[in-house]
């Protein structure tokens, strides 16, 4: 339990009682009843949508994918069943349960407005919500939060990690949080540093945010000690263990367990942040991607386990939660010369949670014939990801439609919100 927090609860209480700088920021007890929660998971590196959600019944699929093709649902080691045409990768058992429980919607052949193949520009467009790269220093999720009518005193969003990704940067108050291995600061030193930063707008705001996030995390840890994280003390928040041939699924498991535990801790609280964001990496599978087993299978399995942890730890709050998993673009339809896939276009995305009206695959499937492929090589995109984002922001978080077309996603009037994604 000590790992979860930066300073122990008693110490925190004493500080809050003694230091005006903290009491002003820790506003518990402002319970506002049910609240919608949103988790956004950025899958950096371009997840292979044709492996995560194989269209095994497409007659061109097996020929393109050759030795990494997944077999049909029902076959040994085959895909997990969705709707008879698409399946889920066999590592995604929890997600398949969600689908069966009508709590998962899968989107296929999706893309942001970005049409080139740079990870970094692709991620920039995905996160900024602009139509081209480097057009904005703020992210669409932050701008959406700035439009939510019921602004409370606390921060609306939290990034699980030391820094805030572009998606969450902007005018609305957000913070970042990650567990610390270092000893707590004493009250006096912290007070002096707070004074020292008084003349520095950026650092004083960041310090205040950090202390608030800490207070929430400490409060949560006092109420519910972590249950699944006992063995992770040496691997936390670092990149999963390097050096080994297949990435050690255990390292990814430990990291995701820790992040999802922390995310749940923030979101469970009625007066805590509504939105949590975290990054996942390792999806850039240029070589030895694997099929039902192997590199990608291990990473998908770790993520799936992390999502299951998130549900478990959210408890009743899962009912009000939607989790959105997105990546910057897809990968080539055909396997390459090194048993992997190169940068592509059309991708898959996922929306799951108790708040989701799920149990379906949303795809205007373009097919995989050579004529149907985008530039003769990639799954052609047929659905603008912004339609999904807008639908979730409007129905789930109550962001006004007017703002969605103007400030949240500039120049996006043509991308209409996809409605009916959230349970009414």
């Amino acid at each position: 339990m000590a790992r979860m927090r930066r300073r122990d609860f008693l110490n925190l209480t004493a500080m809050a009682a003694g230091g005006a700088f903290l009491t002003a920021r820790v506003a518990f007890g402002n319970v506002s009843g049910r609240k919608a929660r949103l988790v956004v998971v950025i899958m950096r590196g371009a997840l292979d949508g044709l492996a995560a959600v194989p269209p095994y019944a497409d007659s061109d699929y097996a020929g393109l994918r050759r030795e990494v093709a997944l077999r049909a649902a029902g076959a040994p080691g085959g895909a997990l069943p969705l709707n008879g045409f698409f399946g889920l990768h066999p590592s995604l058992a929890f997600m398949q349960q969600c689908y069966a429980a009508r709590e998962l919607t899968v989107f296929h052949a999706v893309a942001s407005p970005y049409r080139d193949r740079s990870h970094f520009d692709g991620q920039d467009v995905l996160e900024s919500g602009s139509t081209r790269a480097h057009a904005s220093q703020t992210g669409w999720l932050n701008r959406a939060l700035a439009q939510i009518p019921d602004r409370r005193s606390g921060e609306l969003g939290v990034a699980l990690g030391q820094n805030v990704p572009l998606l969450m940067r902007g005018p609305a108050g957000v913070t970042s949080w990650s567990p610390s291995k270092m000893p707590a600061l004493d009250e006096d030193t912290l007070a002096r540093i707070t004074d020292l930063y008084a003349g520095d707008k950026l650092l004083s705001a960041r310090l205040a945010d950090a202390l608030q996030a800490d207070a929430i995390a400490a409060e949560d840890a006092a109420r519910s000690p972590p249950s699944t994280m006992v063995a992770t003390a040496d691997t936390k928040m670092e990149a999963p263990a390097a050096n080994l041939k297949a990435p050690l699924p255990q390292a990814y498991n430990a990291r995701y367990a820790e992040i999802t535990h922390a995310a749940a801790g923030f979101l469970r609280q009625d007066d805590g942040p509504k939105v949590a964001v975290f990054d996942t990496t390792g999806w850039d599978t240029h070589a030895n991607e694997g099929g039902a087993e192997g590199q990608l299978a291990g990473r998908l399995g770790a993520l799936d386990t992390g999502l299951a942890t998130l549900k478990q730890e959210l408890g009743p709050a899962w009912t009000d939660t939607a989790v959105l998993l997105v990546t910057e673009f897809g990968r080539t339809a055909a396997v390459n010369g090194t048993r992997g896939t190169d940068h592509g276009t059309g991708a898959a995305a996922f929306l799951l949670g108790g708040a989701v009206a799920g149990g379906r695959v949303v795809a205007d499937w373009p097919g995989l014939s050579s004529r149907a492929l985008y530039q003769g090589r990639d799954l052609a995109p047929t659905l603008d990801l912004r339609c999904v984002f807008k639908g979730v922001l409007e129905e789930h978080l109550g962001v006004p439609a007017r703002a969605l077309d103007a400030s949240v996603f500039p120049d996006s009037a043509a991308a209409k919100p996809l409605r009916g994604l959230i349970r009414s």
Partner: protein
Amino acid sequence: MLDPSTSAIAANRFGLGARPGDLAAIGADGHDWLRAQLKGAPPVLAGAELRSSTEILAQGLKLRREFQEAKKSEARASSDAGATQKGDLEKVGQYLKPIYVSEVIARFQEATATERPFVERVTQFWANHFAVSIDKQFLAGLAGSFEREAIRPRVLGSFSELLLAVESHPAMLLYLDNHLSVGPNSLAAQRGERRQAQRRIGINENLAREIMELHTLGVGGGYTQTDVTAFAEVLTGWSIGDDRGRFAGGVPGQFMFRSELHEPGAQGVLNTRYADTGIGQGIAVLRDLARQQATARFIATKLVRHFVADDPPAAVVGRVAGAFTASEGDLPTVYRALFEASESWLQPLSKFKTPSDYIVSAYRGLSLPVEAGKGPLLPFELLGQRTWAPGSPAGWPDRGADWDGASALIKRIEWADAVGARVGSRRDAAQLAPQLLGANLSDATRTAVARAASAAQALTLLVASPEFMRR
């Protein structure tokens, strides 16, 4: 009359942070101090524990093969192959880990001790520009030797020589998957298709794309998917020697051009036709990429962002790019254009330090020893910048917003607190503050340090101060 903050800017922005006495030694003109550092060959890192990448990789390949063979025989003999596989994988990891530790320590020691901190800063800049990341197999063992062999000796040479050395180094070929990329009409492909119809033989375009996007032209630098594919075919055959396996031949662990993997025929890249001269085809494309206007502009923008401001002033970028083009990528000329631009000295403290900069500058400022063992690696992990682990070929980001998160800030403060506690009364923060920060020392920090409750707290306040967070 030069601004009195010149020496502080020279030491902290262009160097790696002032040590006690540095500002006085730099004197009134930081330019001379920087110019002097460009003279002579770049420092090399030496030490019995620093081995060549060839040696490291050859042994790593051998270990992996032993593990794969053991796995096969285990699988035949036992039903519990999974446990063996994990144990043997850990063995490869155990082999690489101490190599990584020695390399990080050597780099860290150089950064804290060097008398030519500008050269070390540009070394780290180029290592990040040509980033590899230890989360890929073997790179934990190769990232350090890659930097020592391909980058360090060439940071005061020409960009095209640096580029060639980097792209032909086994670390980069492994990292971006080129070593097994096979030309679709190569000899190996023809042999393979007869043998194994199921398996697709072909190129992997990862290296070709990232050379254009990240190493030379930059995204939007005028290349197309067709250029990427053609360049990937040009680069087929740029591989690594091995004494066994599918492509046996060459010196194990060393760069080799495998003509049997190379796609035959001429290729068109960026509207230029390149005849098939084997390895020469790739060298010719790389040399031309190094000469492109887009490359000059891209490199200049990154350098100015690194040294001057997150939003690089256009005038400085223009001058640095001009120097790059006019000198055909002579790096000392490029650096001089950068630090001779008056704009580079105008805004004090415009850059928020990366965690690595922050740690190194604290070690230099407080004269902390970089001891052997894993201890010195910890701060980089705690503060979120494990050495050579950017996680992507784009390298670590270089803007304040990428590093100034709330949680990141509190970790710096906690680390500053731990450093203060460790050093305690062995350093006098009030005396150090003007020596490290010069004209950038604020009244608020000076007062806070003077009024601190203990020597340890005074050091913490100095290292956590707003001006020590920036350069």
